[in-house]
């Protein structure tokens, strides 16, 4: 341990130079639990990121977690729980969501546009993955054993 660290240890340690909030939650894959997690998340990060970044983060996480609740965890597969973790990095808010439900279809991650805008028969769905793809960077998915792992970054300022 370097000399300075030893000096900072003890019953009244000096504050680290950069203290940034993070968020970790194990929640039921259920829209009400998703809503509660997002509300708590906003409280945690509100002072640290802009309202715009917070809004984009909340939207992306709502889309991802509601997808887990609707598709992955409803078929009697797994525990019905998911894990959410968000940390602040230089590039943005790095997020990881994992669950032990059924596998994510490969189509979800393929680049996609908006559903066809037929004015006579407007689409009522199909926006979720479009929003996720558009609002995130470094979006990646992998399956680890029985778990789905989805990770991405929400930038502090929107580039497009």
């Amino acid at each position, binding site marked *: 341990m370097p000399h300075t660290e030893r000096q900072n240890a003890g019953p009244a340690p000096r504050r680290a130079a950069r203290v940034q909030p993070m968020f970790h939650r194990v929640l039921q894959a259920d*829209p009400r639990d998703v*809503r509660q997690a997002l509300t708590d998340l906003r409280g945690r990060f509100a002072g640290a990121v802009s309202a715009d970044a917070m809004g984009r983060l909340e*939207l992306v996480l709502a889309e991802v977690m509601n997808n887990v609740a609707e598709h992955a965890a409803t078929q009697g597969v797994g525990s019905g729980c998911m894990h959410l973790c968000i940390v602040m990095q230089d590039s943005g808010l790095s997020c990881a969501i994992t669950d032990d439900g059924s596998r994510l279809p490969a189509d979800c991650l393929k680049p996609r546009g*908006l559903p066809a805008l037929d*004015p006579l028969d407007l689409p*009522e769905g199909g926006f979720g993955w*479009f929003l996720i793809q558009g609002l995130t960077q470094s979006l990646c998915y992998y399956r680890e054993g029985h778990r789905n792992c989805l990770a991405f970054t929400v930038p502090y300022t929107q580039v497009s």
Partner: protein
Amino acid sequence: MPKLTVTDTEAQLLVAIEEARIDAAIATRFKDRLRDIVLRGRKPVRLDMRRVDFMDSSGLGAMIAVRKALPEALPLVLEGLTPNVERVFRLTRMDTVFDIPPAATQQE
């Protein structure tokens, strides 16, 4: 039940959404409730969304379903969009489908 305050004037229905979030937790009930209201009214609708602080794609889907339930000739005007709600309409191009007056003209 999602909270909606309805003011029925001669010319139009003014519906104020009293919910802070239109998300997956209430989207279906919200859609059913609002669709009932606009279908009973059979007149132009003004939707006051200033209290809605968050909407996800399931909330957007509910709004689209209500728009589709209303005859095309009857306007559905969305007023008081907060930044989080405006973002969803804009990114999905649904701002071209709904009647959304510019914020500056909404001051009363």
